[in-house]
């Protein structure tokens, strides 16, 4: 019996900390664990007893990369519990803020974390030695996103201006003008990014994914919508965000390293750019649709390596829509709607750059949080990432271990896993025998 173990001690160019252990026996995979050693931080427990206004600021601290996603899902869950709704220009402002986060997070991933894989560099900084103009373009794009978040939220990481019901202060048209100016340039950069990454050399891989993403009647859903599921062939099925826990169940598997989310009893579905694109590509802005067509993306993309192209298309969409919203922006009369706490349960979901982020809160008679539940995208994708890796490694186990390790890192990076988001990931000791 031959026994071989591939270890990647610490995953790099991902947000957070994780590792992968693969056990092989007689040329077959006997076990594969994407191991997360991010220390648990217990957010759901800490939120109990906090006021109904507090979760947006507190849950932003789950993740420094996508704090706006946490703020948006938290706000909407609490507003739902309290029977309030944020509409009109305040909703537009939320979308704008969210587009800013999308631009900066996607630009970070595309240029500094993911593209180096395709061009053969260890980092964006190393890539800059030979491709300074490209890295500078990426940084400029990222900056455009951060400036938009800063104009509305005060700062790019853990913005301070978001509150349940809307904002503390609505920005003036004048305050948004510099961000708009930069966004016009960013939109050109985003189009150039799509053309650039579309030319990468992609492995010829397709997976038969089951997708999950929000869907909205008129928008490429980011801020809100119902939950859509499907394989990209038939018309998607769907359910209301409030019915989330009837469909998505997280299980702690004793011999696995992470909670595995099951969708309607099946394990291993995918959320994130490929899922959004498969279920919603018809609702991208016309410019983003054109860019996608020119990049050779069909209505559905099942090649995980080409997620970088989908991300680039989503940057075009975000720049384009943000500019449209800024052009039509009229300062709202009030920066927020009143949200009076009442006992009850509220659900909220929005599309973080890496996938659907679900929050549920139960408020007690005193308006304090009695229960909190957070389901981050990476926890949902965990089982599917492991399945991708099994498919990748199965026929290649005889390759040298360092080559295998590099291949696995690349396959994991396709999914932009945000491990610090993984409020649920385990610190499990694995017995390697």
């Amino acid at each position, binding site marked *: 019996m031959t026994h071989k173990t591939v270890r990647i001690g610490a995953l790099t160019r991902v947000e957070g900390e994780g590792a992968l252990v693969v056990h092989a026996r007689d040329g077959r995979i006997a076990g594969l664990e994407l191991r997360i050693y991010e220390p648990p931080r217990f957010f759901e427990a800490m939120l109990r007893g906090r006021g109904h206004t507090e979760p947006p600021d507190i849950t932003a601290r789950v993740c420094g990369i996508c704090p706006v996603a946490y703020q948006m899902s938290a706000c909407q869950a609490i507003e739902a519990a309290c029977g309030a709704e944020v509409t009109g220009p305040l909703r537009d402002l939320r979308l704008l803020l969210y587009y800013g986060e999308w631009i900066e997070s996607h630009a970070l991933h595309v240029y500094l974390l993911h593209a180096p894989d395709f061009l053969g560099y260890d980092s964006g900084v190393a890539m800059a030695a030979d491709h300074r103009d490209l890295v500078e373009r990426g940084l400029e794009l990222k900056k455009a996103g951060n400036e938009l978040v800063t104009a509305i939220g005060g700062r790019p990481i853990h913005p301070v201006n978001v509150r349940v019901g809307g904002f503390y*202060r609505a920005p003036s048209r004048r305050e948004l003008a510099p961000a708009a100016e930069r966004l016009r340039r960013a939109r050109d950069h985003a189009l150039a990014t799509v053309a650039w990454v579309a030319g990468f050399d992609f492995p010829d891989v397709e997976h038969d994914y089951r997708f999950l993403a929000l869907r909205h009647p008129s928008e490429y859903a980011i801020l809100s919508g119902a939950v859509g599921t499907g394989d990209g062939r038939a018309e998607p099925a769907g359910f209301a965000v409030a019915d989330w826990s009837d469909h998505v169940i997280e299980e*702690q598997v004793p011999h696995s390293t992470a909670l595995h989310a099951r969708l309607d009893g099946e394990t291993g579905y995918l959320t994130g750019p490929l899922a959004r694109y498969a279920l919603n590509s018809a609702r991208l802005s016309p410019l983003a649709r054109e860019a996608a067509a020119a990049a050779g993306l069909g209505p559905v993309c099942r090649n995980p390596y080409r997620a970088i192209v989908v991300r680039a298309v989503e940057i075009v969409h975000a720049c384009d829509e943000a500019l449209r919203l800024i052009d039509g922006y009229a300062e709202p009369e009030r920066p927020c709607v009143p949200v009076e706490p009442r006992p009850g349960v509220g659900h909220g979901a929005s599309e973080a750059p890496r996938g659907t982020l679900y929050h549920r809160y139960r408020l007690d008679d005193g308006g304090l949080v009695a229960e909190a539940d957070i389901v981050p995208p990476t926890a949902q994708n965990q089982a599917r990432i492991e399945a991708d890796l099994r498919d990748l490694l199965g026929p290649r186990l005889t390759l040298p271990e360092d080559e295998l390790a590099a291949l696995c890192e690349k396959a994991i990076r396709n999914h932009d896993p945000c491990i610090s988001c993984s409020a649920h990931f385990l610190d499990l000791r694995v017995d390697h025998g």
Partner: protein
Amino acid sequence: MPRLAVWKFASCDGCQLTFLDCEDELLSVAARVEIAYFLEASSAPGPGPYDLSLVEGSITTPEDLERIRHVRRVSKRLVTIGACATAGGIQALRDFADVREFAAVVYARPDYIATLDRSTPIAAHVPVDFELRGCPPDKHQLLEVISAFLAGRRPVVPAHSVCVECKARGNACVMVAHGTPCLGPVTQAGCGALCPAFNRGCYGCFGPMESPNHASLNHWMRELGMSTPELVRIYRTYHATAEPFRRAAEEAQGFEEGAG
């Protein structure tokens, strides 16, 4: 070329990201230092020793207790960045609870979780050369700290309160003008008085200033209608175990008991 390392412990990654958010400066910093170890940004971690280590996150697991000692051994200078590394962070709320109960709320099998019952700052375990505040830190202050250490001088970072920044920025005082509770008077400057500029009270994400008068502030917060639980919660958020904020919350609770 001086060698820089960036380390992560229990945290949200936001402080490391502050470094990558220096879009205009990143490539020029990279030209002056070798970014030798930075897992979030590079697949090629280089071995120590390092001239400057930036440490994000707090110590919450038995392994991390060992790892921070290793980081100290391989680092000529060690600088903590952000609220977690400097004060234990939001996850230090476990210090006021039973961590096993916390684990049972979040995990079906809490017995799989290896965790410490406290979240502690880096300085509780190893000598630290400088602590940079903020949740997240301000990127200009981060650049100042990096350049100062590379030049062999102390960083210039103010120790005064957010109130000073508010005045400098020309903000109206949200407490005086709107009756909004604000931690600005007891919180260290550095953010540029961001929250008051958006018409909200400071929530203390840069932690306690050098010599805060929280007794006076607690009095004014009560005058503005804050209840004892609200007052306790506002101190017990991102710097719950930083000594002045811990005392301020305890005094607020004691006030209630004294009155009762």
